[in-house]
């Protein structure tokens, strides 16, 4: 089975040339339909790795392949199409405060130019799935942290991405909501989406054992094991 993510000696510098390297010589692969926990202490480079994976930055060196496309050499105009196949749950949600929960979730579909009728049906169903049917017209500032996180998750999965990356998706959720989210992610994974979740929640990892990538000081110190 082809790898959805393939890293070979990948390094990342935010400032090209003299800047410090925040990721060093990362080499790993995640096959299609795979599930990975991304673990490591704060400052280990988890968010930087996720930024590479959702194409916010390009690697400074090495070879990074996402969804079969080599990222370093790909033309800039090819990236938006690739990004639409990647769902992202940001640690800070990154919702648009002036839009309703409905419009926030609908955003990826509208950007992709889907018909409005289909958008309405899909978004309504998705908001029902994450338990926010009663909050469709609410704007993010009117929602609790947990509700905002669920909107962010709904937005990440609404377009049925091939790859889903999530940065601390349970950070603002209580245990019950975190479990519900895990069921959602596992359901996506069962349907074929490759999932990579960065978390500090060791309890969650223990309850949902899966292969783990462990980072420390920008280096991959473990790729394997379960939980």
């Amino acid at each position: 089975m082809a790898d959805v993510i393939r890293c070979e000696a990948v390094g990342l510098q935010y400032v090209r040339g003299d800047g410090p390297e925040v990721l060093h010589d990362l080499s790993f692969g995640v096959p299609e339909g795979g599930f990975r926990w991304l673990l490591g202490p704060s400052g280990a480079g988890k968010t930087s790795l996720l930024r590479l994976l959702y194409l916010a930055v390009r690697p400074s060196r090495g070879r990074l392949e996402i969804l079969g496309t080599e990222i370093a050499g790909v033309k800039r105009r090819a990236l938006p199409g690739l990004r639409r196949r990647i769902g992202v749950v940001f640690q800070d949600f990154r919702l648009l405060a002036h839009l309703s929960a409905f419009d926030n979730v609908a955003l990826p579909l509208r950007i992709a130019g889907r018909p409005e009728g289909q958008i309405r049906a899909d978004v309504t169903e998705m908001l029902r799935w994450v338990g926010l049917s009663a909050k469709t017209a609410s704007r993010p500032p009117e929602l609790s942290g947990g509700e905002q996180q669920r909107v962010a998750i709904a937005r990440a999965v609404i377009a049925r991405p091939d790859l889903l990356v999530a940065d601390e998706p349970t950070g603002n959720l209580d245990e019950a909501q975190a479990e519900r989210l895990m069921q959602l992610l596992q359901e996506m994974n069962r349907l074929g989406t490759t999932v990579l979740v960065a978390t500090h929640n060791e309890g969650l990892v223990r309850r949902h054992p899966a292969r783990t990538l462990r980072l420390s000081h920008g280096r991959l110190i473990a790729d394997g094991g379960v939980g």
Partner: protein
Amino acid sequence: MAELAELRDRRSARLRPGGFDDLGLRRALGDRLLPLLVAAMTFLAALALTGFVAAAALARHWREGAESALTVQVPQPGGPADQGTRRERVLAILRGTPGIAQARALSDEALSDLLRPWLGSEAQSLALPLPAVVEVHLSGDGPDLRALAQRLTQAVPGTLVESHGVWVARLSTLARSLQACAGLALLVVAAVAASVVAVATRAGLAARREAIGIVHSLGATDGYIAGRFARRATLLAFLGSALGALTALPVLLGLADLAAPFAGLQGIAEPPNGVWAWLAALPLPLWLALPGLPLAAGAIGWLTAQATVRRWLRRLS
């Protein structure tokens, strides 16, 4: 029940507001300052355009006048001379001179038209001793003007020969210069309008930096984001420009009214009977060009916003 239905309607309206504004540009590119600045630019452009059209009309008027490259004035035209009146003698000499295609004495009405700007429409009733004016059209290089003038003065003393050539050339140059200045003013106004749109767009980009980053990360293309800005900038520039053009219209009609006597018109007639005459005081090219100003402003808004946003987006991966 009614309250429930109202709540449902309100919620539905909030779900899909008209003109989905994902980047929040209605606030970032406000509907006050930019349209007002574009309105002011358009007002200036309308004045410059009027100058351009007026200079073109003057140049054409003078060029047409230059076809009669020579004017001969005959004081006391009815006085006696060899073989008839002084006027007839001058005409006979002119028609018999090689290099002259045509010599025609202006009628009293044509003379009155010429003098109307200075003496009013009742010039003939003032009993002024007006000279006869003979329009002379030359052929080829024309005759030796100095020798012709000498012959005419000897035959009919007091006759004045005036060549238009030099003055027409000078006036044409002046008109062309005025046209060029007006054209330059139009270009400057367009450049300033583009700068105003660019500054407003950059301010909008700075204000909506985070939202742009979000839609970019969700797979929005540069064209999608630039299109959002361009649509807003086009709308604001078009509306502002339409306001400016409408504001300029009465001013231009007033100027046309002031210029009407010099163009041989009777000035503005009083509405309601003369409303069409009032509007017709403005030359046709201006009527065609004025609606073009909002369209041009919209185009400037679209192009400037597209270029500004696309250049800015290059910093994102």
